[in-house]
């Protein structure tokens, strides 16, 4: 991977990010009604403060200028004040990020760690019981409404069986002083294994719920692409070379089969990011998703706007990283 090419690819992100920002801006700008009035809602605010707000949003200026102001602010991380919290939106969002990131990463890891082996097994042992399980499971997985499934899991494991906690990130007795703000890591860094298990037990259900659709889709993709790859001439040729089955499956087939899996996984992080809102709401997870949902109902527009932008930018970047990964797996694709 040439550095110049990397920079070039990064530059190509610019128009997309610009477009994404434009749409986020338009979402708000084209909302019917006076945005300031809607935003203020029943928050007690003085006339002077209202005026400042208007000026900050640049509502007195023409659309084009407002957009530029918005862009400038976005680049500098200035998303205005959350009227509801009476603090900068940026601060409020940043506080909630570690929880959301931790949850999403664990969900991603669960999804990858289950779907790839399952998909591969299903393809190798086509039409056997494991294939059936994988096929039916992935079909169910994509069809389950996450919000509902989460509630069921919660009722079963947390309320009825009392195996796992009901809500939150970590138990009362397991707090550790933050280092990275990722509890699974912090507890380990502090050498608190009990707390680590506690944090793990908290994250398990939400992460499974969040990762489920992705797991299902990736299982299906891996299975299909593995089957596809196994049909290829180069696998037949590898057979003809008298190579061991292991080598054929894992070196020749899997490396190629993972190519679509990687790009689909990147696309599906979209479902992780969106799913945050629902899963965090259902499981009382103290992350950004829940904050956004709460903010919608109090018309905390600047926060919603900033969060949507944040999610979109994250998504674009995740896909960019996946592209890089893709080139590692697939030598035919040059950056």
């Amino acid at each position, binding site marked *: 991977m040439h550095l110049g090419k990397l920079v070039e690819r990064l530059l190509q992100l610019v128009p997309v990010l610009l477009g994404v920002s434009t749409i986020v801006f338009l979402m708000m700008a084209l909302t019917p009604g006076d945005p300031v009035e809607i935003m203020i809602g029943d928050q007690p605010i003085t006339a002077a403060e209202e005026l400042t707000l208007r000026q900050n949003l640049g509502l007195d200026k023409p659309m084009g200028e407002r957009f530029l102001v918005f862009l400038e602010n976005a680049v500098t991380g200035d998303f205005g004040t959350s009227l509801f919290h009476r603090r900068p939106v940026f601060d409020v969002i940043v506080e909630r990020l570690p929880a959301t990131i931790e949850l999403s990463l664990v969900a991603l890891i669960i999804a990858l760690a289950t779907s790839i082996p399952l998909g591969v097994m299903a393809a190798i042992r086509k039409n056997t019981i494991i294939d059936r399980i994988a096929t039916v499971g992935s079909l169910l997985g994509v069809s389950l409404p996450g919000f509902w499934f989460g509630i069921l899991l919660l009722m079963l494991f947390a309320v009825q069986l009392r195996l796992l906690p009901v809500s939150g990130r970590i138990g009362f007795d397991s707090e550790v002083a933050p280092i990275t703000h990722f509890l699974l890591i912090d507890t380990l860094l502090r050498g608190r294994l009990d707390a680590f298990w506690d944090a793990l037990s908290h994250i398990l259900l939400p992460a499974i719920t969040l990762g489920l659709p992705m797991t299902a889709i990736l299982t299906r993709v891996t299975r299909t692409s593995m089957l596809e790859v196994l049909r290829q001439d180069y696998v037949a040729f590898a057979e003809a070379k008298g190579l061991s089955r292991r080598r054929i499956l894992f070196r020749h087939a899997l490396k190629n089969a993972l190519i679509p899996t990687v790009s689909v996984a990147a696309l599906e992080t979209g479902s992780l990011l969106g799913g945050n809102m629902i899963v965090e709401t259902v499981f009382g997870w103290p992350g950004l998703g829940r904050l956004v949902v709460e903010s919608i109902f109090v018309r905390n527009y600047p926060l919603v706007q900033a969060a*949507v932008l944040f999610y979109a930018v994250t998504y674009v970047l995740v896909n960019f990283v996946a592209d890089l990964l893709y080139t590692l797996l697939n030598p035919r694709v040059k950056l």
Partner: protein
Amino acid sequence: MTAADDTAAPAIATEEGTTLFRRNLSVFAENRLALASAVLMLLFVLVAIFAPLIAPHDPNETDLFRRLQPPGWAAGGEWSYLLGCDGLGRDILSRIIYGSRISIFIGTAVILIATMVGIIAGLAAGYLRGWVDIAISRLVDILLGFPYLIFAIGLMAMMGPGLVNIILALAYKEWVIPCRVVRGETLAARELEYVEAARAIGASRFHIMLREIMPNILSPVIVVSTIRMADVIILEASLSFLGLGVQPPTASWGSMVADGRAFILEAWWVSTFPGLAILLLVLVINVASQGLRDAFDPRFNE
């Protein structure tokens, strides 16, 4: 020159006038599970259409004396309220039956709009290329930069809840998917020799786009659209669950699950059944669309 020997023609040619479409359809019909799912799907649609005739009760009729009444088979239940009642004593079965209208209507409307827009945009981008393609493709790239649910939530937060708004919020992004499929297929098709042949004969762009290319890309589009339909239904339910969906008292499955969430300790049936309804409908669509895909888009064949 004698006529090419007829007896030697391939076996598939023996049935006179079989179209590719009908052949695919018969392949589809052979897939029992998919066929059963398609029948169930039809059943859902019928239930939605004839909801007033089927529903045992008025879905919005509240009866506080039936508040949280358990399902018919459980202690304290009544068979005439088969799936029990919700927090306002409304019949859950009737609400599920009426709720199917919302899910199916929104799903169908979004997919129809998106597919139509997607086909037009995709054909234009893929065939005309140039500036049209650049403009459309960039827009597609940008919209793809948003996670779907986030985009819909953002829009709904700004536009406010309501049936039309949900359809718009979903369709604004959904069209991108058929558009990408159509564009890709069109790009491939425009290089095919039969398109070149039509041009060589002097056919116009419109003739080529609409008569030569479109019929050939329709089956992948239909396949993709049915697959997407399942997703759109889940998305709508998710929005309703978050309270960004249709307005009460209209029954929608997602909001029924959300409403029942508070009662889940005392009255599990209130959210369980509507959730099950979503699962069933989406599952059925997914199975059917997988069958369609296998039959109509042989590239996916295993």
